[in-house]
């Protein structure tokens, strides 16, 4: 009964996250009851289709399980709250890290701690308010756009409209995706507001008598930040898409490969760009880190490409 699984999969995608597994389990049992009582234990494909058709389109069924219409579609509401929480926590984390770095670099006795704490609080609050505003706007637009494009609430819906279940059985680790989004957001905030972090520790090493080859020229580094930000934003998009589908599909893996190619090119360029560094051009310092990131990126890219080309599931 492939068509039944496709139907349940389509409903599952439209349900809010909370309790969706149990709803699907119950619906499957009820639909099988309905099919069996009408057509016996070995129904034909068209008999299953007729029961599904009568039951209603996936959007209609999911709509019945959701609450009344909201400005943000109930299908996305859990994801919306999750992303708002992630963004707020990441901003708090980022500004706290910046605060700690300031304490370490300036010294506790030279700092006006209450002022900096107040700044930490207000920065987090205002950044969170504007970030949540943008996220809300995006979700409202998605809800509006998707709802107008979603024709399966109409009576014209037939089981032939059901999408195929993605073949991939490789499930996404939710915790991994959420952690990735948090780390990327923290990195975006820190590197954009405090790029000097690149040279943090250089002078301490020097004072301690160690020789670190070079420092990074922050002005030149800032030119690269635009590209780094773009790659990070695509990476966030990749993780959100993985969270929505719950499986690594071919198109999602393709996004990962694009991210891989872009970041390898970028970090190799940064490694080779001599105008980015001040001092000896050896591997002790940021230059070595960029090369390491590019090499790790290559390994990941090869793995993903092999999986995309040779893994049927």
């Amino acid at each position, binding site marked *: 009964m492939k068509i039944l699984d496709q139907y349940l999969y389509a409903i599952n995608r439209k349900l809010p996250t909370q*309790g969706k597994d149990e*709803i699907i*389990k*119950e*619906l499957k*049992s*009820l639909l*099988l*009851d*309905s099919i069996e*009582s009408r057509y016996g234990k070995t129904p034909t494909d068209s008999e299953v289709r007729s029961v599904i058709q009568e*039951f*209603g389109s996936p959007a*209609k*069924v999911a709509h*019945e*399980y959701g609450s009344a219409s909201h400005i943000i579609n109930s299908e996305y509401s859990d994801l919306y709250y999750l992303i708002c929480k992630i963004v707020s926590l990441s901003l708090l984390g980022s500004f706290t890290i910046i605060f700690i770095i300031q304490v370490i670099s300036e010294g506790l006795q030279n700092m006006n701690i209450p002022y900096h704490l107040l700044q930490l609080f207000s920065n987090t609050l205002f950044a969170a308010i504007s970030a949540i505003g943008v996220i809300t706007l995006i979700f409202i637009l998605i809800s509006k756009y998707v709802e107008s494009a979603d024709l399966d609430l109409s009576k014209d819906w037939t089981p032939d409209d059901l999408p195929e279940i993605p073949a991939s059985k490789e499930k996404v680790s939710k915790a991994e995706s959420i952690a990735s989004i948090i780390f990327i957001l923290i990195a975006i905030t820190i590197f954009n507001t405090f790029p000097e972090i690149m040279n943090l520790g250089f002078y301490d090493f020097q004072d301690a008598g160690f020789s670190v080859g070079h420092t990074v020229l922050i002005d030149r580094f800032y030119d690269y930040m635009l590209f780094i930000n773009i790659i990070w934003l695509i990476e966030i998009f990749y993780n959100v898409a993985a969270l929505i589908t719950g499986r690594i599909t071919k198109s999602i893996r393709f996004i990962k490969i694009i991210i891989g190619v872009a970041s390898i090119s970028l970090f190799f360029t940064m490694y080779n760009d001599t105008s980015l560094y001040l001092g000896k051009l050896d591997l002790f310092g940021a230059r070595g880190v960029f090369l390491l990131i590019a090499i790790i990126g290559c390994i990941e890219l090869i793995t993903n490409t092999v999986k995309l080309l040779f893994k049927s599931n």
Partner: protein
Amino acid sequence: MTDQKVSQDVRQGLLDNILQELRRGTLVMVVLMNLKNQEYGYSLINKLQALGISIEQNTLYPLLRRLEKQGLLVSLWDTSESRPRKYYVISDLGRSILESVIKEWQHNNQIISKMI
């Protein structure tokens, strides 16, 4: 002739809406009354149909879930048979609420009967 046809359609549409509202209003009471013994979704549909109450499956199943969330029903998964089934039965809270709802229904019924 066409005008008459249109007004007939409008009348039918209005009547359908009002009757639907009327049925919807009594649905929770009907469901609670019929879950004094445990039933699963499909058996409840059949039971209601046998009593002359037709309700769409995709209206009843989400309603059962909502009533469970509100604490008016309790549920239990029976996994002893080949297909796991979720059974629902009225809770103590559901019983006491149903009692009050029935009283209200009888009260309204008396008043409306006098009006007819």
